[in-house]
C-alpha cells in the first residue's frame, strides 16, 4: 500500500491547530503475579478499583466464571481508558489521544514511509463505541475483527478522539486518519447533495438501528407524520447526523419547520428534555435507552408514540479527499465479508446483544 497521508495538508492543519503534545502509548498486557486481585490491579493501573469489572469483562474468556479467582501467570488485556494504564510492555491496543494531540500522534508520511491504517472513533456511543465496554463496544469489536481478518500488510490501529464533530473535518478530510466509524449513511440516491454523500465513501452496513424520538412523559409528543413535529424543539448531540431532519422531503431544517439544538453531550439533551426545554431527543434506540438507564430517567423519559424517525445503517467511512479512500473501503468490506463467512461476526454481535438486552430488561 502506498502512502495514505498527504504531508502538506497535515502540516498545514497541525500549524493551524497550535501546539500539541504526543500521547503516551496506553493499554497493553498485564501478567498476573502472586497476591493479585482484579480490584488491586484496577486500583494500581487505572487508579480506580471500580474498573475491575472492565478488566473482568475484557478477559472473561481467560478468567472464567469467578472474578475473585485469577491464576498467577494469566495474561490480562487491559484496554486504554482515559489514558491509563501506561507503561505496559505491549501497548499495541487502542491508543488514547484527544483532539488536540491527534495531529502529532499520526506521523507525517512520505512516499518512503508506511504507516498502519489509522481508524477513528469516540467514546460515549454505547453500546457501539465506548472503551468501558468489552472490546470497546460492539461496533469497535466488529471493526477490530474485520481489520484483523483483512490483515493489511502495514497493520492498523484504532484511535479515540472524543469530539465527533472533528471527525469528518478535519481529521478524515485531511487524511490525518484513514477510516472513521460508526456513521449513518443517507439515502444518496434520493439526496445526493447531503454533505455525507458528497464527501464520504461508505462500507457495507455493519449494524442497523431505529432512530427514535425520546420524550418527556409529561409532554408525550408523538410522531406519525412529518407535520406532527412542525414548531417543535428537538435535541441531538453535536457531531451527530442532521440529514435525517431533511430526508425524504421532510425539510425540517431547510424550511425552518423544526428547531434542533446540538449541545456537546447526550446528557445535556436529556437534561433539557426533563426541564421541558426540548420536546424530543433524537437518538438511536440503543444509545438512547442505555443513557436513560444510566441517568436514572426511567419513568420521566420514554420513547414517543407513533413511528421511528428513521431506519439507519451504521457504516465505516473514508473521506473522498483521501487518496486511497476506495481501496480502504474495499479492504474493510473484504474483512467484513470474511468474518461474516467464518461466523466471527455473528458470535461478536451475539455476545454484545445478549448483554445489551439483559441490561435493558434488568434495570
Amino acid at each position, binding site marked *: 500500500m502506498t502512502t495514505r497521508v498527504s504531508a502538506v495538508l497535515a502540516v498545514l492543519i497541525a500549524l493551524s491547530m497550535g501546539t500539541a503534545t504526543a500521547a503516551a502509548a496506553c493499554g497493553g498486557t498485564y501478567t498476573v503475579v502472586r497476591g493479585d486481585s482484579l480490584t488491586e490491579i484496577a486500583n494500581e493501573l487505572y487508579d480506580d478499583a471500580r474498573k475491575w469489572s472492565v478488566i473482568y469483562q475484557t478477559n472473561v474468556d481467560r478468567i472464567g466464571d469467578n472474578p475473585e479467582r485469577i491464576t498467577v501467570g494469566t495474561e490480562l488485556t487491559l484496554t486504554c481508558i482515559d489514558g491509563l494504564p501506561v507503561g505496559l510492555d505491549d501497548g499495541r491496543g487502542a491508543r488514547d489521544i484527544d483532539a488536540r494531540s491527534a495531529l502529532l500522534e499520526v506521523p507525517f508520511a512520505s512516499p518512503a514511509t508506511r504507516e498502519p491504517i489509522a481508524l477513528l472513533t469516540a467514546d460515549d456511543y454505547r453500546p457501539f463505541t465506548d472503551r468501558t465496554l468489552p472490546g470497546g463496544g460492539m461496533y469497535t469489536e466488529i471493526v477490530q475483527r474485520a481489520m484483523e481478518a483483512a490483515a493489511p500488510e502495514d497493520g492498523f490501529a484504532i484511535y479515540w478522539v472524543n469530539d465527533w464533530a472533528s471527525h469528518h473535518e478535519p481529521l478524515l478530510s485531511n487524511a490525518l486518519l484513514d477510516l472513521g466509524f460508526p456513521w449513518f449513511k443517507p439515502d444518496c440516491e434520493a439526496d445526493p447533495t447531503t454533505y455525507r454523500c458528497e464527501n464520504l465513501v461508505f462500507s457495507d452496513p455493519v449494524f*442497523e*438501528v431505529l432512530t427514535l424520538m425520546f420524550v418527556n412523559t409529561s409532554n408525550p409528543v408523538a410522531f406519525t407524520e412529518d407535520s406532527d413535529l412542525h414548531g417543535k424543539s428537538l435535541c441531538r448531540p453535536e457531531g451527530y447526523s442532521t440529514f435525517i431532519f431533511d430526508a425524504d422531503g421532510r425539510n425540517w431544517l431547510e424550511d425552518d419547520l423544526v428547531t434542533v439544538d446540538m449541545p456537546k453531550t447526550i446528557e445535556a439533551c436529556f437534561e433539557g428534555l426533563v426541564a421541558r426545554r426540548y420536546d424530543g431527543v433524537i437518538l438511536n434506540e440503543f444509545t438512547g435507552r442505555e443513557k436513560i438507564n444510566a441517568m436514572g430517567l426511567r419513568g420521566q423519559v420514554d420513547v414517543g408514540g407513533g413511528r421511528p424517525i428513521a*431506519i439507519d445503517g451504521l457504516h465505516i467511512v473514508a473521506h473522498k479527499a483521501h487518496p486511497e479512500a476506495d481501496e480502504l473501503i474495499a479492504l474493510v468490506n473484504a474483512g467484513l465479508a470474511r468474518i461474516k463467512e467464518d461466523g466471527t461476526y455473528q458470535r461478536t*454481535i*451475539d455476545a454484545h446483544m445478549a448483554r445489551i438486552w439483559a441490561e435493558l430488561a434488568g434495570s
Partner: protein
Amino acid sequence: MTRLARSLAAAIIAVAAAPAAAECVTARHVVAPGETAFSIAEEYYGAHETWSLIFYANVEALSDPMELAAGTELTIPCPPGGQAFTTATTPLRPDEADMRLLTGGALPPFTDRDWPVGGMVTELVAAALEEMPAPVTVSLDWDDDRSGHLEALAVNDFDMGFPWLKPGCAGPADHVQCGNFHFSDPIVEVVSLLFVRDGAELVFEADTDLHGKTLCRPAGVATYDLDGEGRRWLSAGHVALAQPATAGDCFDLLVSGEVDAVALNEFTGWTTLAERGLMGEVAPLERPLGVEGLHVIISKRHWRGTTHLYRINEGLARLKESARYDEIVSRHLGVFWDRVN
C-alpha cells in the same frame, strides 16, 4: 350447550345454494340485540359453522368472537367458495435477499406449498412487506420440518421466520422465546376450538369446567393458550394432555373415548375432520378456547433485529389500512371452506 354442524350435509347444500360469487357484494350488518355470530352466519350463509368468517372480517371491532354488542356495524364478506382465485402479490422466491424468510409447510390454510400463493399467512406477509418502509429485497425458503427453524433463526441462517404462536411474555417465568426473539404484531388471529364427540355432555362455560378432563393436542404444537391468563390447566395439573404425533391421532383418541376433547385451531380441526370422514361424529363446542395470533419472529441478536421488526409491523399496519388485507383473508377462507366441504 348446543353443537355446531350437527349435519354437515345441510351446510354443504346451503353453501352451494348461496349466490354466485360474481353477484356478491360485501354486506354491512348492524348487530341487533340477541344476535350472535352464529345466527348472523346462519342468516347470510345458511351455515352457522362458518361464523368465524365474520370474526376474521371484523377482527378490529370484535375483541371476543362471542361478544357481539348490539349496534356494532359488521362487514359481512361474500359467502365462501366459488370465487376465482387471483392474487397480485409479488411471489417470494428462495434467493440471497436482504431479508431471508423461513417458513414451513403443511399448515393449511396458513402456510402450505400446495395452497394458492403458499397460504394465507404467506400471502399476507408478502403483501405487508410490499408496503415496508426503507425497503429491502425479500426471499422465502420452505422447510417443512419446523423443528430446526428456531435454531436456524437464532444463528441467523435466516433473518425472519413465520408463522409462530407467541408465548405469554409478561411474567417472571418468561418462555425462553421471549428472551431470544422479537415477535411482530399478529399477522392473523386464529380461533381455537374444542372438538368433542357428538352427544358428549362436555360443558365449557368457565375454565374450571374442564378440570379433571383430558385434552388432546398434537406434539409440536404450542400449548401456551392452555396455561395462559390464569388458566394454568397444565402447569397446575388441572387438565391432562395427550400429545400424539398428529391431529388425526387426536381425533382417533377422541372417537375411542380416551380423551374428552381435541383442542385445535379451527382450520386444522375442520381439515382433519373432513379428511377422516368424521363430520357429523365430531363437532366443536360453540365457545372458543381462545384466539391466538400468528407472528413473524426475528432473533434479538440479529444485526437488523429491531429494524426488520419495524419493517414488517409498519408494512402490516399499512396493509390493514387498505382493503387488501381483508380481501386476502376472505379469499383464502373461501378456498378453505371449499376444500372442507
